C-alpha cells in the first residue's frame, strides 16, 4: 500500500530535520548546524560560559569574524577607539580560549559575518544557521533555516549546539515576472516591506518563490533574504536549485567528490512539495516594480522613486499619523512630493545587504568614466577581504577612485556607524544598507535606503536620482 505523506514546505522539512527532542509544555529543542560569531553580541555569552564553567560543545560548528566595530581605514595602523580595540581583542581571546576559529582583524578571510559564511561554503542548503545578528536570514538564500538570536541564545548554542524554538508560521512571497532595467533584487525586498509593513512578517518565515526569484543570482537572493527581518520575519529563505549548487561547487567548505553528489541529491529533496500550504501568501508583480527608496525612519516607509511621499493629514490612525509626522520631521521632508531631486551629502555602498562583488560591479559599471558630484562623499566598502581581492583583480577600485569615491577596508562601516564611519547631524545619505532608523548611520543622520544602482546614480548627480535617467 502506498504510504501517504503530507506535503510539506521547505520550512517544515528544515524544522523536522533538526528537532532533537520535544518535551510536553516546552518549545522544541533544535540542533544548530552552523553558528556565526562576531565581536558585538558574543563577549557576554563567553563570559557566561566562564562563570558556569562550561565549554563550547562543538567548536567545529562555529566561526567568528570581526566586522561591526572594526575600522575600515588602513588595517596596519593601530585601532584608535580603545573601546572598539578592546572588544576586537576580546573576540580573538575568547575564540582562542574556547577553541573556535576566528577570522579576526588581520585575517585575509575577514569580512561581514553574512558575507563570509556563504563565501567560504560554510553556509549550505538544509542547514540551521544562527548568529547574534538579525540579518542572519541572509543565509536563507541557500535554502537554510537561518535566524538571528540574542546573546543568551548565543551562550546556549556555544554550550549545547541547540536552541529552544517555537515553530514559525509560513509566509510565501511569490514574485512573478521579469524585472525591468534599473530595477534590482533590493527593490523587490524594499517593495515587499513597504507593502506589508515592518511588522508584517512577525512570527513568520518567508519563503520567496516565483519566476523572478528563480532568475536571481545567489548574491541577489542573499540581498532579498537579508532584509526579511525588516519585514518582521524571523527568517527568509529560497529553495536551493542549480544556481545554488553552481555557486557552492568548489568553495573551501563545500563537500567534494562523492560527498558532493550525495549532498546535491539530498538538497534537491528540500524544495516545498506540490500541494503544501502556507499560512499566508502575497504576490508581487516583478514587471510592475520600479526602483524603490525609503524616505522615513523605518524600512517600511518606502516608495517607488517617482512616487509622492505620504501626507500625514491623509493618515487616519492617530498613532500612525504621529509616527509619520515624527519621521518626516526627523528627515526634514514634506509629504506630498517625491524624493527625486532631493540633495544628498553621502553615498554608502556596502553592508551585508549589498557589498558583494556583483553589487560592486553594478555600481562600478555606472560610475565608469563618470565623476561623482563633488559635494558628495561616496564610500565604497567591500563586504570581505575576498570581495576586495576580487574587486582588485577586476580593476574596480581604480574605477571608484577615478570617479571620486573612497575605497575602504571590509566591515559593516556606515551601516551601523559603530566604527567612526558615520553621518554628522542633519546629513543625508543614500545607502545600500538595510536600516534607516533615527541615528542608525550616526546621531542625527538621515538615511535613504536604496539599491546599488540608485546609490551610484545619486552619487553622480548629487541628488536622489532615478537610475533609468542615466542608463
Amino acid at each position, binding site marked *: 500500500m502506498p504510504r501517504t505523506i503530507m506535503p510539506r514546505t521547505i520550512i517544515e522539512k528544515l524544522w523536522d530535520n533538526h528537532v532533537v527532542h520535544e518535551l510536553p509544555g516546552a518549545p522544541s529543542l533544535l540542533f544548530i548546524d552552523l553558528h556565526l560569531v562576531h565581536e558585538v553580541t558574543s563577549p*557576554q555569552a563567553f563570559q557566561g560560559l566562564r562563570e558556569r564553567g562550561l565549554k563550547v560543545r562543538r567548536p567545529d560548528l562555529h566561526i567568528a569574524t570581526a566586522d561591526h566595530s572594526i575600522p575600515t581605514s588602513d588595517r596596519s595602523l593601530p585601532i584608535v577607539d580603545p573601546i572598539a580595540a578592546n572588544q576586537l581583542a576580546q573576540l580573538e581571546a575568547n575564540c582562542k580560549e574556547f577553541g573556535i576559529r576566528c577570522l579576526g582583524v588581520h585575517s585575509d578571510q575577514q569580512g561581514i559575518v553574512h558575507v563570509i559564511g556563504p563565501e567560504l561554503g560554510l553556509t549550505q542548503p538544509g542547514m540551521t544557521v544562527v548568529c547574534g545578528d538579525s540579518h542572519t536570514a541572509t543565509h536563507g538564500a541557500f535554502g537554510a533555516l537561518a535566524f538571528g538570536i540574542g546573546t543568551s541564545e548565543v551562550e546556549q548554542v556555544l554550550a549545547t549546539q541547540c*536552541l529552544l524554538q517555537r515553530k514559525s508560521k509560513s509566509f510565501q512571497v511569490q514574485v512573478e515576472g521579469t524585472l525591468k532595467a534599473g530595477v534590482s533584487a533590493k527593490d523587490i525586498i524594499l517593495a515587499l516591506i513597504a507593502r506589508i509593513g515592518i511588522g508584517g512578517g512577525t512570527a513568520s518565515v518567508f519563503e520567496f518563490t516565483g519566476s523572478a526569484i528563480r532568475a536571481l543570482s545567489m548574491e541577489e537572493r542573499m540581498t532579498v533574504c537579508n532584509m526579511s527581518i525588516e519585514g518582521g520575519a524571523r527568517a527568509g529563505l529560497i529553495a536551493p536549485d542549480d544556481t545554488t549548487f553552481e555557486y557552492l561547487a568548489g568553495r573551501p567548505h563545500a563537500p567534494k567528490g562523492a560527498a558532493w553528489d550525495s549532498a546535491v541529491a539530498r538538497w534537491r529533496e528540500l524544495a516545498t512539495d506540490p500541494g503544501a500550504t502556507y499560512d499566508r501568501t502575497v504576490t508581487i508583480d516583478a514587471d510592475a516594480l520600479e526602483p524603490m527608496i525609503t524616505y522615513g525612519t523605518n524600512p517600511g516607509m518606502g516608495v517607488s522613486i517617482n512616487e509622492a511621499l505620504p501626507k500625514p493629514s491623509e493618515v487616519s490612525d492617530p498613532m500612525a499619523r504621529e509616527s509619520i509626522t515624527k519621521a518626516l520631521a526627523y528627515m526634514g521632508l514634506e509629504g506630498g512630493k517625491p524624493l527625486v531631486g532631493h540633495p544628498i551629502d553621502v553615498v554608502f555602498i556596502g553592508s551585508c545587504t549589498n557589498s558583494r562583488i556583483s553589487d560592486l560591479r553594478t555600481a562600478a559599471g555606472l560610475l565608469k568614466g563618470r565623476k561623482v558630484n563633488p559635494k558628495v562623499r561616496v564610500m565604497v566598502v567591500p563586504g570581505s577581504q575576498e570581495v576586495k581581492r576580487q574587486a582588485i583583480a577586476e580593476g574596480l577600485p581604480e574605477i571608484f577612485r577615478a570617479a571620486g569615491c573612497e575605497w575602504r577596508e571590509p566591515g559593516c562601516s556606515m551601516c551601523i556607524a559603530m566604527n567612526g564611519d558615520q553621518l554628522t547631524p542633519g546629513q543625508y545619505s543614500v545607502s545600500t544598507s538595510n536600516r534607516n532608523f533615527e541615528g542608525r548611520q550616526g546621531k542625527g543622520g538621515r538615511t535613504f535606503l536604496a539599491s546599488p544602482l540608485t546609490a551610484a546614480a545619486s552619487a553622480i548627480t548629487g541628488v536622489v536620482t532615478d537610475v533609468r535617467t542615466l542608463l
Partner: protein
Amino acid sequence: MKPFTNFESRMVPLPLNNIDTDQIIPARFLKTTSKQGLDKQLFNDWRYDAAGNPNPEFIINKPESQGVQVLLAGDNFGCGSSREHAPWALTQWGFRAVISTSFADIFKQNSLKNSLLPIEVAADVHAELFAAPAGATVKIDLPNQTLTTPSGRVVTFPVDEFSKHCLVKGVDELGYILEQSPEIAAYEAAHPALINALA
C-alpha cells in the same frame, strides 16, 4: 534567575509605533563587553541633547517616571536588531514589563530571558491605558496572566506556557537544555557534521 512576582506600578507612556532597538540603545554603545551600566544609555538619543544634558521634556527624565516599572509603548515595540542590550538597558533602568499591541520576535524572546515581561494587549485596552490619567497604576499578575487597568478592568494576556514557567519559577533555560544532553548526543551520533569550520 529570580522568580518573577506580581506587582503594581504606574506607567511611563511612550506613544510611538515601531520603537526600534537603535532607539532603545544606539549601536555606538554596543562596544562594551559587559552587560552592566546600560541603563544610562537607555533611549540615549531622545534622552540627552547634543551637549549630553538630559532633555527635561523626555518622559524618562521626568520626576514622575522615576521608580516606574511599566513601559507603555506603541505598536511593534523592539523591532530591528537582535541586541540583547535592549532588554538589559530596560531592566537595569527598572522596567519589569512593557505593554504594547505587538512585539518584534527577537526582542520578545530576549526579554523573556531577562525577566522583562512583554504584555500584548488588544487595541481598545491599549487606547484605554494611554488615556488613563497621569499617575494611574496597573496590576500585573503573571501566574494568572492578567493585567488590571486603572479603571479596574481585568484583561488576560498571552504568554507561552514554558516562558511563564521559567519566569515564575526562576528556571534557567540553559540549565534546562543541558539536562537534555543525552538526547543531543544521540542526535549528533545520528547526524554526522556537515562542515568542519576548524579545518
